[in-house]
């Protein structure tokens, strides 16, 4: 909703042509998808499990500082792999084509307090369909932040750098609450809704299991290393949460990323949908290791265009997508992680303060912004 629409120079025909070109990129990968890709995800899953086993094993002796350090680092990486390259992508159905019931969006459960099926609804369905549409995509500010100049400022927003920092530390809980739409559902009447209660119970069960495992069972198994193991798992969860929060902030928050009005997606064509994904996402540049550790969400633009393509193919797809950005004279928002994280945080700070009234403002839009 910036004053100047960066896609204004494109005609309707061009946008549909862009859509067709993107479809062609997708078809190409699908036609070529096969054994190598399957071997890739199996290898990653196996490596993650081994790393977690070894790290937890080392942590049994975490009373010795070197063991604590190695175990904590290993467990942090294992948890990041589980959430990012494995969990997030499998839950997107990226590997459903393998027809392996163990690596499938309908059966996968991850090391996270949000149950997979609830996350799939809020993330795959709401966020990916309505990317960056204010009032529809709750990922925008997670309901606790102001992310666009046009949103009405409220004194509550003064604290948003703090809210965001707390959210980063306990990100998995933030996601669980957000999947439950806790803010909206805490009103008395909604709290009694049986469907909400069932979902809340499922989250409760998942939290209990996760907490029991990380903070009771594994520390107990460590015997004399009880406290150090507890500290190690807490640290690993913290590291994983801050890391995933940072990566995800880079996906849609950095400067240059567009947000959209609810009205603008009425009767949206496929080409327009693609265009919104392109303008509403941002990438992280970096090494192969960086792409891997972000679960290839460093290729957020490509991921939003093709959320169900196997993540290991985003890098090659990115080259073609970027060429399309150039061809259609659109800005491909990307940068190294520190720059993107800074940019996103900068926006969080900037928008915590009121700004001048937006130039264009229709009454109906005002309403939408209030609703958002």
């Amino acid at each position: 909703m910036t004053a100047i629409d960066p896609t204004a120079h494109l005609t309707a025909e061009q946008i549909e042509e862009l859509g067709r070109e993107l479809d062609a990129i997708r078809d190409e990968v699908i036609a070529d998808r096969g054994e190598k890709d399957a071997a890739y995800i199996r290898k990653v899953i196996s490596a993650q499990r081994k790393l977690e086993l070894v790290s937890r094993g080392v942590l049994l002796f975490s009373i010795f500082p070197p063991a604590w350090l190695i175990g904590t680092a290993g467990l942090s990486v294992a948890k990041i792999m589980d959430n990012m390259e494995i969990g997030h992508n499998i839950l997107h159905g990226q590997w459903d084509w393998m027809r392996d019931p163990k690596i499938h969006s309908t059966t996968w459960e991850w090391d996270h307090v949000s149950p997979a099926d609830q996350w799939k609804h809020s993330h795959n369905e709401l966020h990916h369909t309505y990317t960056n549409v204010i009032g529809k995509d709750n990922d925008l500010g997670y309901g606790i932040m102001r992310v666009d100049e046009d949103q009405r400022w409220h004194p509550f927003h003064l604290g948003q750098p703090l809210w965001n920092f707390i959210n980063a530390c306990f990100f998995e809980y933030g996601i669980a609450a957000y999947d439950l739409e806790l803010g909206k559902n805490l009103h008395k009447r909604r709290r009694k809704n049986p469907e909400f209660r069932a979902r809340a119970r499922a989250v409760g069960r998942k939290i209990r299991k996760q907490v029991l495992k990380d903070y009771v069972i594994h520390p107990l198994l460590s015997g004399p290393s009880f406290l150090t193991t507890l500290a190690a798992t807490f640290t690993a969860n913290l590291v994983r949460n801050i890391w995933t929060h940072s990566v995800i902030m880079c996906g849609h928050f950095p400067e240059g990323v567009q947000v959209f009005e609810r009205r603008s997606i009425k009767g949206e064509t496929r080409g327009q949908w693609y265009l919104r994904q392109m303008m509403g996402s941002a990438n992280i540049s970096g090494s192969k290791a960086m792409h891997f550790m972000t679960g290839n969400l460093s290729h957020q633009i490509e991921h939003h265009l093709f959320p169900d393509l196997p993540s290991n193919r985003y890098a090659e797809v990115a080259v073609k997508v970027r060429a399309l950005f150039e061809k259609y004279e659109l800005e491909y928002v990307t940068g190294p992680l520190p720059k993107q994280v800074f940019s996103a945080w900068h926006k969080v700070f900037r928008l915590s303060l009121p700004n001048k009234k937006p130039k264009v403002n229709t009454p109906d839009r005002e309403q939408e912004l209030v609703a958002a």
Partner: protein
Amino acid sequence: MTSAALRSRAWKLLEMVTTPLLPSDYLDLVSPLRAGADLRGRIEAVHPETGSAATIVIRPGRGWRGHTAGQYVRIGVDVDGVRLWRAYSVTSPTNRQDGRVTITVKAIPDGKVSNHLVRRAKPGTLIQLDQATGDFVLPQAKPAKVLYLTAGSGITPVMGMLRDIEFDDVVMVHCAPQPQDVIFRNELHDLVADKKLRLTEVHTDTDGMLDIARLDELVPDWAERETWACGPAGLLDAAEEHWTEHGVRERLHTERFRPSIVVAGDGGEVTFSTTGKTVDADGATPLLDVGEEAGVLMPSGCRMGICFGCVTPLKAGAVRDLRTGEITEAEPGVLIQTCVSAAAGPCDIER
């Protein structure tokens, strides 16, 4: 506490240690064939039989319960990264010393799994297994006279029988296009040389298809024999008719291989088998819409193929991906995205 209760407690504790995964997810990494694991097998060798057939030696997991001669086993093989399930007759005898089982596979034109197994399968590969099943088996009491009537790869279950139990009087009539297409030919001729088998080969390229009436001449006492027949539908239909006509139908045992022949069309009759609704659908309407219009409660999500919230089992028939035109045929375990799939011929959606 009993040991079973103790073990179940220990397992529960282990599940708490590994949550949200299961202990088996970790154990599978080191011992996929152990007792208690999902049944799998490891391909240990692939022996060519003819130009288009090969025998696959499989070491089954500890949970394998064995088979009866003549039964088949369903196996799940990853072909180009996609798990596909097919059924093959077990060709090894039940008392094989090393505990391995074999299946013998004939590569059929365009057969994804059969061509993969015959030409590309590598020793060391893990495959998924089901327990052996099927009632095309020998009876408890030994029949005095036996006839095996087979054609093509129909010989495979019968070979399992031949290798398993010796009978005093066994005749076999086997059809194949040419001599070199006869699977297990050397072994069959060895049995003939040892006088354990009387064999008639019908080479259909030169002799033409077997006319069932010729049995009178090939095996004059065929009607007195307990007969096991396996081959293409035409042969089995003719045999069933012939045996019925002569009032000896109960002596004939047949096994039909059912290659799923799906003719992918444009639209078709859609059955929602759980709710028992059947409606006609065109080839352009997503099955999600078709179901909802028919009043079936369908899971749904983004309605554009990105969220995987609508995936539903396809029990029978074929569907077309409206984005790519790709056809997906029903197989056990196949799930489809109903929001971007349309009927490609009659199909059955589990809803």
